[in-house]
């Protein structure tokens, strides 16, 4: 696409944009140095709920700790969706379906409204079961749909996401709008015997979620810097060529779907547990699209970016809560403005795709790996004749 003709920019100062300079700087640190910076940051993240003070606090409008939990939970979702959308470039508008499946599995296994005779499984059992069920549904949904390309995939996934919701709506055992109350929570009690995880106390939920995020970040990072991650990016860039270069594209796409699904399911379980109530209302298209918004806003394909994106999408409305009806108006406008000013997302997409990338590049060119800020999603799938 051409740039507008009327716009003459002065590129005289060929200085790297800020984001790029930060990244270059970061990449030129040694592993040890990077850890030295990472650890305090992680500690700070864990301490956030304690910093319930201006300007961080979202009170009096929104419970600060729960706002943090919700942001973290959306972060987890964004991480999962990022595997599908950011890594493999599969526009999944029905990701909420996996989130819903996770939540419903938790509800069915623990709520007393459930059709199971004795629905009191421990939360620790619920998590793996929910993830397994979502992974299976990922395969089931992915197998027929992933043969489609681009936006056809988008609309079909949207359809599947809606179908999950509609099934919950229509199938009596899933209780539709009435929902399941009293969904199970993780075990653990305070010293005084009251439960650790409650609907009203966000802190334990937040910590639990952050821990999940860190574990998943590490695992996903492993995947990314491996044959699998490269295959995903190749598929995103040009699926036909990827296949002609020997990548079993279909299988890897299903894998991306399944990985994303598992994480979506996990966040569904967390959501259901904290709210304690699951019905069909939270799993609509709008929610699904908000997930996509978090990923794209943060920088599709960039793990840290999408976490930031989730933070913006979830925390900002809580932080600057106007009168409720103005909130979404402002939010909508903010989305437009943010995207216009940072079309490549808050952090552009560029991940190292080689496990040994750092050494390889350093050896090669003597400078740290160059990372440029433009997004990796300029044109999906080029198509055309071979």
């Amino acid at each position: 696409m051409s740039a507008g003709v009327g716009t003459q920019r002065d590129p005289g100062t060929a200085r790297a944009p800020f984001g790029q300079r930060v990244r270059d700087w970061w990449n030129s640190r040694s592993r040890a140095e990077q850890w030295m910076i990472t650890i305090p940051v992680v500690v700070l993240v864990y301490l956030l709920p304690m910093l319930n003070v201006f300007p961080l606090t979202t009170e009096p409008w929104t419970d600060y700790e729960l706002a943090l939990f919700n942001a973290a939970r959306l972060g987890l979702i964004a991480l999962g969706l990022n595997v599908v959308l950011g890594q493999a470039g599969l526009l999944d508008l029905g990701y909420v379906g996996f989130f819903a499946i996770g939540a419903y599995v938790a509800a069915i296994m623990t709520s007393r409204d459930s059709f199971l005779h004795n629905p009191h499984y421990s939360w620790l059992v619920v998590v793996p079961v929910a993830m397994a069920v979502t992974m299976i549904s990922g395969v089931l949904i992915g197998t027929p749909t992933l043969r489609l390309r681009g936006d056809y995939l988008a609309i079909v996934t949207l359809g599947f996401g809606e179908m999950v919701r509609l099934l919950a709506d229509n199938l009596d055992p899933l209780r539709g709008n009435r929902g399941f109350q009293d969904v199970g929570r993780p075990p653990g009690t305070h010293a005084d015997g009251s439960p650790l995880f409650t609907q009203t106390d966000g802190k334990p939920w937040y910590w639990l979620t952050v821990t999940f995020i860190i574990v998943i970040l590490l695992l996903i990072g492993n995947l990314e810097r491996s044959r699998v991650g490269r295959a995903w990016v190749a598929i995103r860039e040009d699926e036909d060529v990827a296949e002609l270069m020997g990548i079993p594209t279909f299988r890897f796409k299903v894998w991306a779907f399944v990985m994303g699904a598992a994480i979506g399911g996990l966040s569904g379980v967390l959501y259901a547990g904290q709210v304690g109530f699951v019905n069909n209302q939270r799993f609509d298209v709008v929610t699904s699209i908000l997930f996509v918004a978090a990923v794209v806003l943060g920088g599709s394909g960039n793990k840290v970016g999408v976490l930031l994106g989730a933070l913006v999408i979830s925390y900002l409305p809580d932080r600057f809560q106007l009168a409720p009806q103005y909130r979404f108006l402002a939010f909508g406008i903010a989305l437009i403005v943010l995207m216009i000013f940072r079309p490549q997302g808050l952090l552009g997409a560029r991940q190292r795709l080689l496990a040994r990338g750092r050494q390889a590049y350093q050896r090669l060119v003597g400078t740290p790996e160059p990372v440029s800020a433009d997004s990796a999603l300029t044109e999906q799938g080029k198509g055309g004749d071979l």
Partner: protein
Amino acid sequence: MSDTQPGTEPETQPESQAGAQAGAPPDAEGLSAEVREMTEEERAAHFAQVADAVAPDREIAVGVGDTLLELRDVTLRFGGLTALDSVSFELRRGEILGLIGPNGAGKTTCFNVMTGVYRPTSGQVRLEDRPLGRLKRHRITRHGIARTFQNIRLFDEMTALENVVVGADARHRTSVVGALCRLPRHWREEREGVERAMALLEFVGIADRAADRAKNLPYGYQRRLEIARALATEPKILCLDEPAAGFNPAEKDDLMSLIRRIRDDGYTVLLIEHDMRVVMGVTDRIVVLEFGKKIADGTPAEVRDDPAVVAAYLGVPDDGAA
């Protein structure tokens, strides 16, 4: 879901069996800074090492000179249009075969049939005497056919090095679980992949731009990168679709020597090209297509003098046009 199907592919063994000429150094340009500073002997050793990595054992079942790939009466129709009309020819191990013909003769379509992009309406493509049948495209690549594209198709956002490593991944077998947990095979293959990819970039002469995004490379570098990526899949046959398009004559010379070196390293090459100087200069044998039919098949000299070919393709005798 298992990531590999054991037994269907030859095991990769990085053990050299490359020909004696393998160490021929590439042109001085396009060497990494590191290499440029080496002494002569160091450089020779380095290139020997490069050649090792570039041309590992491909366990080809047929001997040099025997038929490696065969098209048997391949016909392909698009609706009413017959793009290939019972085309038969064979590709022998170790040769450079030229595939020429007027525009729209069906050359690219031949590649598409060989690599599984299209399925022949009738007829067979046989690799090492086994029909490709309805093999998936990625399996065909793993069986040993790699290609470049008439309109360059790179993974634009990846660096040159990564593009090539993706090619090398075709031979890797790290599973998703293996990658997730970083099992030893993952590390081994990563190391192998990067080293091989670097060696290949050196081999085609663009190692100095290894860390650049593919889309930011000049056109000529992109063409070479495509070749390196295709080589990385450890093919038995390398199919090049108009690799010299958009090159000036000097660049074409470089390309010709590159193609020869590739063959010398033990690959078999199938080349589509319109530039007669390139075709006549590097091929051992030429197949000529016209309107989807084979009209000639022979050595460059034979083909050049074939009146049918002259009439159909070459037109006015080459009056010294570069």
